[in-house]
Every structure is written in structure tokens, then in C-alpha cells.
């Protein structure tokens, strides 16, 4: 771990101005990912600005859109608090489930909502500094592309990077069409969740569309009319492991008819992957096993597998079907 200057502040604008003004400065929130990466010499900040004392950690009600009130998650609230907040548990149980499917109780007590969005990939070649990795060292090559890539992407990858985004929470946020509120040196803006994370393209070093020094202040969950939901995570062990495939499934049903579906997948792409094809197919159809299967297959047809992750297509199909089944029972 490189030496760094540690400072703390309780003003967001001050934190933003310090980090914006220094190319190698970074924010420190929960620290669960950045310290891990600093110990591995992957992240090399020369300054950490501790923002945990900023007063942007509350869960509050968001003005209603179309009669359904939403929820605002303060960026520095802990994952545990978000998952257990009555507003979230009542209105967005899929988000609670997704958060609770991730990491461990200890890590969820430390990790912040904003930090969860900015987790970096767990690709082992990204972590092993002696190996080429375009995400860590642009232009050095992608070791996973022709390497061991069982855990890697099947959607939206490029020759430059086949890494996946590790978050569970973000998969639910994608399905919920959340908005990310950010504050930077140039002011505040709101980013649609689908635009927050990036595909690798030829700039895999950029995980998301945040500018250096921009600080996430809140995550907004707009009100919605989904009445059924489930977050399913399939992994190599029962708990405390990253997903092989995960699915956030939301359904608005009327009797046995699906009015609308929102489905996002984890463990398959450089960003939470919205299953738009499946959603389109399901709209207006009846909630049958056959329709679920067809929708899932339609979505997974677009996948492009690597040497070791072909299984993710069939597993993805089955995971979508199962998540929809369990959503229906919810």
C-alpha cells in the first residue's frame, strides 16, 4: 500500500473540491473495496478524504411520481441500514434482498450505498498486478479474454475487457430504474442508473460515467407499480460468494397477466444487465412457465460466451425463469 495523506471533512463541497483538485486523491467511505485494492497495490491514491462524517446517510421519502412515493437513499448510509429500512423493506423488497445477498453482515455494516455502486470488478487478473489488465493498466492487454474466464462476461464485453461488475445491490437498482445523484466541482447532476455504469468498449479503465472528484450524494428509487419481485443469486457456495448469475425480477401483474416486467442480471456483464428483450416479450403475456422460458431464452440468445463460461447461458435462462417464478409467489 502506497503512503497517502488522510484527511476528513464533514462538508460535501470541501470533499469534492479536494478530490477534484488532486488527480490521485480519492474519497474514503466504507473502505471495504478500496482498502482491499490498495493492499494489493491495484489502487494507488496519494490522498484519502474520509467522507463518512458527511450528513448524507438518511433514508427518506421521495416525492411521488404518478401516485407512488419513492425513496431516497443517502449515499453514505450503510448497506445494512438501506436493506432494513422499513420504507425499503415495504416498497422495494427486491433491493433489500439484493443487498442482503451480497457480502457478509460485517461488510454490509461498513459498505455504503454510494460505495456499492463504485465497487470494482473481482476479476483475478485485475487483482494480480503482475498480469496484463487493461482496466488496471490501459493498453497492457486483457489476460482473461483467453485465460480462465468462467466468472466473466457474456454480454457487452469487448476484446479489451471481459470483467463483470460484482454488485448485487446494483442489479436491483438497475431493475428499479434508480437515479444516481452526484455533486461535482461543476455542480450537481442526476444520472439514470442505466447510464451510470459503462460497458468496457475501448476504455475498460472507466467503470462508470462519474467524473474524477464527483461524489455520489444519493440514490433515488422512483415509485413504481410493480407488485411482485424477487432477487435470486446463484453462486458456487451458499453464501458469501460472488454471483455466477443473479436476477432481479419485478412484475406488475393483473390476475395472471403480466402488465409489465423489469428484469436485470448480475454476474454477466461489465454493468448490471437489463434484460430488455425478456421484458418486452413478457409485457401483456400471461405468467406461465412457458412464457418465462421463452422470454429468458430470447434474452440469453444475445449472449456471447468465452472459453469457460458457456454454462452461463443455460444457467441464465434457468435463473430468469426461477426468479420470475419466485417473484410470482411473492
Amino acid at each position: 500500500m502506497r503512503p497517502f495523506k488522510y484527511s476528513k471533512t464533514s462538508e460535501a463541497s470541501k470533499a469534492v473540491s479536494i478530490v477534484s483538485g488532486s488527480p490521485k486523491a480519492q474519497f474514503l467511505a466504507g473502505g471495504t473495496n478500496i482498502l482491499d485494492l490498495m493492499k494489493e497495490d491495484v489502487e494507488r491514491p496519494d490522498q484519502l478524504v474520509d467522507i463518512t462524517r458527511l450528513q448524507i446517510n438518511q433514508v427518506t421519502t421521495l416525492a411521488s411520481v404518478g401516485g407512488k412515493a419513492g425513496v431516497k437513499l443517502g449515499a453514505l448510509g450503510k448497506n445494512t441500514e438501506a436493506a432494513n429500512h422499513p420504507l425499503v423493506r415495504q416498497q422495494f423488497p427486491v433491493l433489500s434482498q439484493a443487498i442482503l445477498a451480497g457480502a457478509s453482515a460485517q461488510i454490509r455494516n461498513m459498505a455504503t450505498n454510494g460505495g456499492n455502486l463504485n465497487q470494482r470488478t473481482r476479476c483475478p487478473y485485475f487483482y494480480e498486478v503482475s498480469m496484463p489488465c487493461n482496466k488496471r493498466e490501459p493498453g497492457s492487454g486483457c489476460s482473461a479474454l483467453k485465460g480462465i474466464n468462467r466468472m466473466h462476461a457474456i454480454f457487452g464485453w469487448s476484446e479489451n475487457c471481459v470483467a463483470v461488475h460484482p454488485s448485487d445491490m446494483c442489479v436491483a437498482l438497475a431493475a428499479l430504474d434508480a437515479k444516481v445523484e452526484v455533486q461535482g466541482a461543476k455542480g450537481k447532476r442526476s444520472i439514470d442508473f442505466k447510464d451510470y455504469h459503462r460497458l468496457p468498449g475501448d476504455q475498460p479503465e472507466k467503470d462508470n460515467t462519474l467524473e474524477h472528484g464527483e461524489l455520489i450524494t444519493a440514490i433515488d428509487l422512483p415509485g413504481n407499480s410493480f407488485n411482485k419481485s424477487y432477487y435470486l443469486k446463484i453462486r458456487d457456495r451458499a453464501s458469501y460468494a460472488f454471483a455466477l448469475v443473479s436476477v432481479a425480477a419485478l412484475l406488475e401483474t393483473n390476475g395472471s397477466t403480466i402488465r409489465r416486467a423489469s428484469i436485470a442480471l448480475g454476474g454477466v456483464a461489465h454493468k448490471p444487465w437489463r434484460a430488455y428483450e425478456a421484458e418486452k416479450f413478457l409485457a401483456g403475456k400471461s405468467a406461465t412457465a412457458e412464457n418465462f422460458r421463452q422470454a429468458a431464452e430470447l434474452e440469453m440468445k444475445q449472449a456471447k460466451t468465452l472459453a469457460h463460461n458457456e454454462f452461463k447461458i443455460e444457467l441464465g435462462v434457468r435463473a430468469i425463469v426461477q426468479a420470475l417464478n419466485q417473484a410470482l409467489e411473492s
Partner: protein
Amino acid sequence: MREETIDPELTADERRLLEDLLHDENDDFSAAGLQRRNFLKQVMAAGGGVLALQLAGENNLLAQAVPASPSAVPPGTINTVKLSLKVNGVVRSLTLDSRMTLLDALREKLALTGAKKGCDHGQCGACTVLVDGQRVLSCLTLAAGCEAKSVTTIEGLAKSGKLHPVQASFLKNDGFQCGYCTPGQICSAVALLKEAKNGEASYVTKDLRTKGPVQLSPEEIRERMSGNICRCGAYPNIVAAIREVHEGKDAAQAWSFVEQTNHSS
């Protein structure tokens, strides 16, 4: 099941041995060292005879054991941070390298070696401590960020010579083998019981919309303890230990014997 009761009474000999063991002969001994000795005294008071004898061997080793003073700065330290925090109820002032984790500060600066370094990357839970009452991983916590926080380690759970009920239950249910993950498991379990009381949910909680305290099924305990890896595989006993405290009733004896039916030799 036969339960060994912990006898708080020491014989005169044991008391003398204990005095010998913990004699404040060394002026160099820092406040941290003293705290450790006080802690050992507490533990021994709880443990009785065998333990005191057991420690006789350890004592020789502890004799020269002088932890660095928490405010001393090792040569070459840059980016120093000064802070005060409460550890096991005592305010401690530290001067340390900004890179130092809470885990290393506890172990190397404060001589509180109960919390263990199993992976140093948040993947095993052996370093679990309570910060402001919440279980966290001290290996991924910067010590510098702990200004004014209150930290409880495994050494701070036993109070006035009496084990915390979770500690006693781990002992009784053999909730460990090598013991290395145990301080983390116990801190985690202590927090878990509170979380359940507070109605916090887990991934295996059936209905998230239900409010109020959670009755912990084995499945709930397993999921909530999955952030603490035990390579010895003491999991069933860890679950039994936590259930016993949660439900307030004795776990059943866990093994059985059958007569041998066929003698070959």
C-alpha cells in the same frame, strides 16, 4: 450433556501462582501491557485452576513481552495521524501511519491480539470486532478513521470475571477447534443476537415485510454467520452455541455410541 461449571474460586496456591504470573515487575510495561494483564487476571479468575497452571508455560514467554507504546512512532513513519478512541471502555490515544488498519492498530499498537488476521482482505471474518456496537471487519477499517469511536474486541466481552453468555456457550458447545477464527465468530454472534432483536432481516428471511424481532432458525443463524469462515468446520457447533443463547435452553447432546457387534481379533 455434562456441563463443566466454571468455578470462580481459586485455591490459595493458584492465587499465589497468579500473583507470580502477573507481578508488575517490569516498569517498561505500558498501559497496554497492564491492560492485558488485568484482562488475563479476569480470565483466570473466571477459569480456575487448570488454566492458571496452563498459563505457567505461557508466563515465561510473556515475561519479556513488552508491546510498543501506542503513542510511540516507529522510525521512518510518514503521514502520521493522531487520534483517540475508546477500546473496551478505555480511552486510548494513538499516533500511527495513515495506512494502519484498525486490526493492526489493535494487535501491534495496543497488544490486543484477540482479533486475528486471517486474510486481511475482508474474506474470512477472523478480524471481526464491534465498532459503536456494530460488527465490522477491522482489517478493512482504517484506524485513522476511528477517531472518537468505541471499539469492543473479544478481550472486552467478559465482564468482571464472568464470560459473556456467547463465550460460555461456545465453550460448552465446542464451537471451535483451532480457535483462530473464534474471537471473530464470537464478536459476530454477539452482534447477530442484537440484530435479530432489532428485527434486521437476512437473505433467507422469508417475508421482508414482517416487522419485529426475528426468531432465529438454524438457517437464519447459518446465513447470518456466513461471513465468518471456520476452516476447522465447527459450524454445527457454532450454530448450536448461538441457538442456546438465543433460545435460552440447553442444546441436546450431539453424539451417540453404539455397541460393537463384531470383534474380528
